[in-house]
C-alpha cells in the first residue's frame, strides 16, 4: 500500500479547511488527458462534500510525453505566486485541447498578470525547483501515473470517476465517525 510521504503543508495549493475530515491530494499533469477528464470530477466531488473535504494539487508533469506540461505547471506556479493559482489551474484544464505557450500567455493576461514577467519566469524556469520537488515527493509516495490521488494519505487505486471517488471518501468519513463515537 502506497502512502503519501510528503505531508500537506502551508506551501501547498489547498482548497478547503485544515480541519476538514478528509484530504484529497492529486498529483497531476496539465497536458494529461486523464487529468483533464478528472478536473470537473474533482470539482463535483468537492461540491458534494463541501466543508468535509480539503483538496490539494501537486505537480507531476510527464515531460517526455507531454511537451507543454512543464511550462503549464510553471505558469500555474507563476500565477500562484501572485495569488491566482486556482484561476490559472482551472483555465489550463478547461482549455486543455489548445494548451500551448499562447494559451498560457492569454490566461495570464486574463488574470491581469504581466506577460513579460510570465515569459521571464518560463524562460528562467523560476518555478521549476518547486515542480521537481512535487514530482520527487510524488515518486517517493508511489505516484504511478497521472492523475494519482491520495485519500487521507493513502494512494487511491480505483477509477478517477465521481461515484468511485465519492464512495472511497465516504468510507473515510464513516471510519472517522466510528472513531469519534468511541472517543466520546
Amino acid at each position, binding site marked *: 500500500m*502506497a502512502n503519501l*510521504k510528503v505531508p500537506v503543508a502551508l506551501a501547498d495549493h489547498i482548497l478547503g479547511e485544515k480541519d476538514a475530515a478528509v484530504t484529497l491530494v492529486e498529483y497531476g*499533469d496539465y497536458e*494529461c*488527458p*486523464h*487529468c483533464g477528464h478528472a478536473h470537473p470530477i474533482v470539482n463535483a466531488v468537492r461540491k458534494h462534500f463541501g466543508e468535509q473535504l480539503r483538496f490539494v494539487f501537486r505537480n*507531476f508533469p*510527464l*515531460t*517526455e*510525453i*507531454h511537451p507543454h506540461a512543464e511550462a503549464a505547471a510553471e505558469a500555474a506556479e507563476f500565477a500562484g505566486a501572485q495569488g491566482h493559482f486556482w484561476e490559472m489551474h482551472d483555465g489550463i484544464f478547461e482549455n486543455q485541447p489548445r494548451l500551448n505557450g499562447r494559451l498560457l500567455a492569454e490566461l495570464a493576461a486574463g488574470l491581469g498578470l504581466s506577460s513579460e514577467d510570465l515569459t521571464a519566469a518560463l524562460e528562467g524556469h523560476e518555478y521549476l525547483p518547486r515542480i521537481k520537488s512535487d*514530482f*520527487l515527493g510524488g*515518486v*517517493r*509516495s*508511489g*505516484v*504511478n*501515473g*497521472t492523475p494519482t490521488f491520495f485519500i487521507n494519505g493513502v494512494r487511491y*487505486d480505483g477509477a478517477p470517476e465521481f461515484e468511485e471517488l465519492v464512495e472511497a471518501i465516504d468510507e473515510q468519513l464513516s471510519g472517522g465517525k466510528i472513531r469519534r463515537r468511541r472517543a466520546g
Partner: protein
Amino acid sequence: MAHILAPGTTAPDFTLPVTPDQSLSLRDLRGQPVVLAFYPADWSPVCGDQMALYNEIHPEFQKYKAEVVGISVDGVWCHAAFAHDRHLHFPLLADFEPKGAVAKAYGVYREKEGVCERALFVIDEEGVIFWSYCSPIAVNPGADGILEALENLKEKRQNHGQLESSRRAG
C-alpha cells in the same frame, strides 16, 4: 504455480535482443545495480504507464548508478516503435523467443494470458537479487519500492565498506 524469485537468489543470467541487431546479457551489467522491470505489454493505453514513469524518473535511478531494463514478450520491432514514441532512455528487452523464457526463470510469467507479470527486481553488483516485488497486474507499481531498495542497497554497501576498511585498519 511459479513463485517470484526471492531476495538472496542469484539472478538467472539471460541474453535477449534489445534491438533488431543487438542483444544484452545480464552479466554485461555486473558491477552496478540493475533494475529489471517486467511488464505485460507495450502500448498500454494510459499516460504515465510504467515504462513512461521510469523514463521520467531515470535521472533518479542514475544517482544510484543503476541500470534500468524493461522486459516484456513484445518483439524487437514493437519495442523499437514504443521506445521511439515514448522517448525512452533505457533498453527494452524482447522475451519473445522462446516466448517468456526469462519471465518463467524469474517466476513472473502468466501462462493463461501469455504475458509477464508486473514484477520488479533490484539486482546487486554481484548479480544477486536484493529485492523483488510482484504487483497486481492492473496496478502500476510505481517506483517508490525500487528507489527504497536502491537506497537500502547503497547503505548496505557503505556499511560493508566501512567494515572492510576498519578490518584492514585493525
